[in-house]
């Protein structure tokens, strides 16, 4: 798989636990880096907590009406 285009999981407007479930899929597919779009603080916390528990480093970027969580698998 090339990394030229980062995978994006769009969870905007979906309520818990769907953002986490969708992120689970990416983790199961062993993606090394991807981004998750969230639009609620609760989803941001849940997805971040899940990714950190699966050893991903995360960076959160603020957009106007949502946030982007960039996840990179730690060695």
């Amino acid at each position, binding site marked *: *798989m*090339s990394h030229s*285009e980062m*995978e*994006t*999981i*769009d969870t*905007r*407007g*979906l*309520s*818990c*636990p*769907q953002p*986490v*479930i*969708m992120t*689970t*899929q*990416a983790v199961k*597919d062993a*993606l090394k880096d*991807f981004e998750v*779009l969230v*639009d*609620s*603080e*609760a989803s941001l*916390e*849940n997805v*971040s*907590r*899940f990714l950190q*528990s699966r050893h991903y480093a*995360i*960076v*959160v970027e603020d957009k106007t*009406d949502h946030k982007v969580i960039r996840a990179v698998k730690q060695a």
Partner: protein
Amino acid sequence: MKRQFFSTKSGIILAGAIIGIIAAVLQYMGNPANMGFCIACFERDLAGGLGLHRTEAVQYIRPEIIGIIIGALLVSMLTGEFRPRGGSSATIRFFLGVFAMIGALVFLGCPWRVFIRLAGGDFNAVTGIAGLVSGVAAGAFFIRKGYSLGRSYSQQKPSGLVMPLFMLFLLLLFLFNFPRLFQSVTGPGAMKAPVIISLLSALVVGAVAQRSRFCTMGSVRDVILVRDFHLLTGILTFTGAVFVMNLLLGQFNPGFVGQPIAHNSHIWNFAGMALSGLAFALAGGCPGRQLILTGEGDTDAGVFVLGMIVGAAFSHNFGMASSPSGIGDFGMWGILAGFVFCFSLAFAMIQKRRKLAGPTANHNERGGK
């Protein structure tokens, strides 16, 4: 990443402790036994206070319900989390609310009260908890299969304010003693902590629950779905706090028989809470969480809350609600209808992952590039 305190482990523990202490103290101050803070019971009382049902023992405009929504509204406005939104299968959520309440009133309590009852020594809560876990597990199964009520979208500010303003309006009617409101003279509806204490406590609960995402159904669901024990830690602390406070305040009475506002038909305790748990799982939050989301401007959650209030009216008007002497004449039919509705819905709303994820998220399909 900086995390806000209440989203940390210590945060959820503190939140559980605060809410638990408040629940036990409210009972001490006059709320019904093992019902210091029960969302379903209080919405049922509120439905009675409005005369939507005429069961005289359970009519009271509970300030707790109003306070929790307003508390969540205020804190979400302060933190910039107030975000009017909706459009995710509102009508379905209304009926999930109806059946969640029918199940809760067969058991006689919502998922908050099931833990409060346990902490008060009511061992009938054990079958209730078993039911709750089974119902949530069934919901989690469908969520894993792709069950979704679809996305919500941002809405104009007024739509998120309608429910909180309606609650404020109810509070005014109540505080100014509007004579047409219904008020129990005896029974659980007449047992109440002083209004100001109920209201202030509920504001605190609303604020703390908003910050911490406290959710009873979610605590079970997250463990089943993703082995995440975060919320469960909060719920266990909550239960422990109620238990310790009950011991201190002399409110702990262990046993199966003669428990306050409870019956011991184990099958129906199980089935009632199972239906309730399934409906809450399919709606994405326990009754407390739905109030919090309502305060944050989630109009879909607001519709669910209205469904619960109407469900309480149906339960009492149509003989589906239990009483301490046992289940109602039509309680089992209500449970049956609820399961038929919830399971049909759960199957019908399973979406292909592609659809669920939206056009930008087909990582499975794009993975081969």
